[in-house]
């Protein structure tokens, strides 16, 4: 059944807006964390969400993935509303995500981590018998091959190098054939070369499968190399939206966020 479901979901064409966010808002105790933000992400493209600490990026992200319920506004995925849905419902609608601090199941092998997601996607979680590690083995390996982790399939997630762990997370996030991928600071804590490699891989997969990617990031090298467009939040407001080059030149963005570039590689 799952196979049919997966095949019926035809890859979206580049240019279609996969995610549409309209007038999203959230306040905490009177403070407007996110204040009327609207944007959209198209299939096969990468949108970077940047801004100072406390600008509302995390709040915005959590309203998209279901961890927070917006006070106001609308989130549409492929034209269907997902506003205020719980994380697992959002996932079922076709949203995959990676976490800022890598989140894997440490008592399982790399392959089992992916199998877990596939079992959930196939709706087999309530089966109390039959060995889980024998299910969806081939599909798991295919996903791991995509991110270059198939050789390490038998290893425990707890012992992987950090960059490899990020790849596993990516494979897990791809298990439900997502239309949209949400990545919260995907390269935090990585060495410069690893950052570029991971984002290049992500961009390649996104383009090939027509997945829309929204990511937050503090590394400007990553943002300016791997985003098709960039949005900038400051104090809950969307202050800039454009290509990397346009945003980089925006004096407002330079003042509140980018600074002189002396400590981040000179932009």
């Amino acid at each position: 059944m799952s196979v049919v479901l997966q095949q019926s979901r035809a890859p979206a064409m580049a240019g279609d807006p996969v995610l549409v966010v309209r007038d999203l808002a959230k306040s905490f105790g009177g403070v407007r964390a996110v204040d009327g933000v609207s944007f959209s992400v198209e299939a096969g493209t990468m949108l970077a969400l940047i801004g100072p600490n406390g600008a509302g990026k995390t709040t915005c992200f959590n309203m998209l993935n279901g961890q927070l319920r917006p006070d106001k506004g609308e989130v549409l995925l492929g034209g269907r509303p997902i506003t205020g849905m719980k994380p697992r419902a959002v996932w079922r609608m076709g949203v995959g995500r990676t976490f800022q601090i890598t989140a894997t199941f440490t008592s399982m092998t790399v392959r089992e981590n992916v199998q877990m997601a596939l079992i959930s996607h196939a709706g087999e979680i309530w089966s109390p018998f039959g060995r889980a590690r024998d299910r969806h083995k081939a599909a798991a390996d295919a996903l791991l091959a995509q991110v270059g982790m198939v050789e390490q399939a038998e290893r425990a997630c707890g012992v992987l190098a950090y960059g490899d762990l990020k790849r596993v997370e990516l494979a897990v996030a791809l298990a439900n054939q997502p239309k949209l991928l949400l990545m919260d600071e995907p390269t935090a804590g990585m060495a410069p070369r690893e950052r570029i490699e991971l984002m290049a891989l992500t961009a390649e997969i996104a383009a090939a499968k027509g997945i829309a990617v929204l990511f937050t990031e503090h590394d400007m090298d990553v943002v300016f190399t791997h985003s098709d467009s960039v949005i900038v939040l400051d104090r809950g407001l969307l202050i800039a939206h454009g290509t990397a080059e346009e945003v980089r030149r925006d004096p407002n963005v330079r003042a509140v966020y980018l600074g002189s570039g002396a400590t981040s590689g000179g932009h």
Partner: protein
Amino acid sequence: MMLEITALDAYYGRAHILQGLSFSMSRGEVLALMGRNGAGKSTTMKAIMGLVPPAGGTVSFEDQRVDGREPFEIARMGIGYVPEDRRVFSELSVMENLSVAQRPPRADVPHWTPERLFALFPNLGRMRDRPGGAMSGGEQQMLTIARTLMGNPKLVLLDEPSEGLAPVIVEEMARTILALKGEGLSVLISEQNLHFAGNVADRAAIIEKGMIRFTGTMDELKANEAVRSQYLSV
């Protein structure tokens, strides 16, 4: 020597994290401890602070052994520690956060009071009664540094001070570290960001698999393509 580490060994649970690590720092110096994720930078700082008990080797601070002492004793001797994940007391106000770390003045280092700190971090002065939990990441980072300074340290350990911060805040952080150096403090930072380290540090020590693989001035590091590529993945 401000800090001298010789053949330091440390385990975390069952794993041998530091494997005979040695380096030293002189007074008034800013040293950047660089290396990949998992190389042992944080553990080095925790081992100096006594938070991870060293299994072998020595740590001397101003020619006094500190290894084997309790963290609070080490802090009282004059080492301040700023952890990578900030760890402000989220339910305590800014003033209360500062008061926890308050120690009596110490000879030949600046004596910090809340007022002096607010001059250095004007943002904090405007939110004295705000709970730590209600501050942004950048403000919290500044508060943890201010809090550590309340102990009037001679040496400050800053674990990944630029991680997860917006570029403008990172610039402010760099100015802060240089200001501390200007006050005569010694600063040990752990860092992956070469641009940042290049701006603030006098020397770099590169750590890989629990051992120091390179030490030299920042200029020497910048000139050494091989070392940067091998250990820093730049």
